[in-house]
């Protein structure tokens, strides 16, 4: 059977692999800030890309795969945080400790800020990271979180206020 002489759609394998090569590191970093655990962050990102790969043929719009994956990563982080809060299966019974790299490379002040971010409710944490870590507009963050712009605005505002309070309490 000759398969080379017909015009074929770009295989999902190539699209997903290229997307992973370009964006996996950034998404793992985002998930690490959310979860504080690189292994769990990598699992979440891998699952998001595998989900995209599995569903490729059933997606109605394949023109924005990064948006799809980013939303999946945020979903995965939420699930991981829920499991952690429930202590499911012993996987996340304790909040993970900071990595040696973070201890060595990040100043004490910044580590305190990240620790404060991790104490925020999930939605506030997401809004903050999408807005200031990924530099998304309120509209883009709203799309990624599947909430209204107003929700992003209020979650961000409350998050910044809460961080200020947490840092003040600990200083």
């Amino acid at each position, binding site marked *: *059977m000759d*398969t*080379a002489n017909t015009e*074929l*759609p770009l*295989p*999902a*394998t190539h699209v*997903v*692999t290229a997307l*992973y090569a370009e964006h*996996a*590191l950034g998404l*793992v*970093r*985002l998930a*690490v*800030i959310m979860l504080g*655990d*690189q*292994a769990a*962050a*990598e*699992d979440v990102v*891998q*699952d998001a*890309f*595998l989900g995209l*790969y*599995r*569903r*490729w*043929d*059933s997606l109605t719009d394949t023109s924005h795969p990064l948006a799809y994956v980013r939303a999946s990563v945020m979903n995965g982080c939420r699930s991981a945080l829920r499991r952690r809060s429930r202590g*499911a*299966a*012993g*996987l996340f019974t304790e909040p*993970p*400790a900071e*990595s*040696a*790299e*973070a201890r060595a*490379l*990040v*100043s004490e*002040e*910044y*580590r305190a*800020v*990240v620790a404060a*971010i991790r104490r925020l409710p999930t939605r506030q944490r997401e809004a*903050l990271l999408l807005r*200031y*870590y990924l*530099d998304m507009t309120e509209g883009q963050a709203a799309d990624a979180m599947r909430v209204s712009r107003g929700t992003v605005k209020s979650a961000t505002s409350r998050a*910044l206020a809460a*961080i*200020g309070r947490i840092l003040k309490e600990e200083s």
Partner: protein
Amino acid sequence: MTPAERVVRAATRAYGETVTEVRPLDLTAAAKPGERHVRPRRRRRFPAWMAPVAAAAAVIALAISLVTLRTTPSRPAPAAGGVPRYYAALTPQGPQGFQNPLVVGDTLTGARLATLTPARGNWFTAVTAAADDRTFVVAAQPFYDAPDKRFPARTWYLLRVAPGTSSQVRLTRLPIPDLKGDDVLAVALSGSGQQLAVGFIPNYATSPKSPVQLRIYSVTTGKLERAWSTSDQTVFGGPGRASTGSVTTALKWVDDDRALAFPTISTASNPRKHEDVTHETMRLLDMSADGSDLIAASRVIWSTQGVLNQVTDYAGQLSCANTFINPMLTADGKTIVCAALEFPNPPRTLTAPGRWTLAWLAYSTSDPTVARTLAQVSVDASRGNSPSIDLLWADSSGGTLIGTWSIEAAIAVARGGSPNPPAAYRPHWGVIADGKFRQLTTVPDMNYIVSIAW
């Protein structure tokens, strides 16, 4: 931007930049519509339909103690219908299916002798059998013991089956080192049960390209007896392809435990032709050979090649390299057996059925280019729900095998179909002998088993 916003941005970016490397994407872990599920993923997550079944069997708590091991396995026990009587299998049960309890069962009667659960927070990850049908070694490890430690301390146990006694199954901790931080690719208990061969990548979490190691430990004392290494990452099926199931079949003791056989599997992609060309070899490592370079000390005794079209799944030749399943050298060292696939006329659409040929092949080491078909199954299935095949066990001469085949429920699962696989998608287990595949129905929970050893 306010000062507070600037601080949040700077802090999160500084923290994020401590992550400089991520592991490669393993697409073989996904069963995608239109592409073959080439090998089971490393079993850390399971689709909903593979969630734990209601287990009615009694759960025996582990009483683990360090003891000195003196007895060794006796000669091979009488087989049941050409296959060993007892098996040990890992099944995903417990919360989220993570625990992989160890089920010990009787292949002849279907009776379950015991179900052993790992200690809380742990899971069983590998199982391997000696030739006597009564002796197994099992590995267990915690899910995580610290951040950034993806492959934490592993504990090895000896499992002894003593039917008809007051304690039919006994699990004893072995003094084999933990191999902390290592990714185990292959495990093989020698036929005598006295040596454990372990193939692994040391410090995989931090150095995934470290040389692959092969070590031989004394089961009795835990002492390291021999060691080899290689920078060739294709040995034991390669780190990207290893799964809980394939760890059991990636290394075999042969020739009365005087040699070890292991496969290499490598794939080169040709984007211009949308082709993946896979090359498989079987290598033989003589225990008496000098040197510590695994490749230099071993030799190729068989090789094969397969070509798959990435888009259409077209596979024009019946080849074991099309399945990515570990081939095996039989214990007498004379026959290579493997699982093969052919798909010569793929339909144009994902959902239209096409005819697949699945087969178990045998090659004599004296004439390794000529394949003999041991059994063959023709399956009508779409590319979206493509079939898969596996090889789980072979007797000492390759006259009798145990294998499985199934149709993946990829589209049904990906599109939110039924959480339980329809009967058509459940795996078929069988004994392959005398040119036939005879259904094996005495292994319970066979939909869910992730690793099994006889």
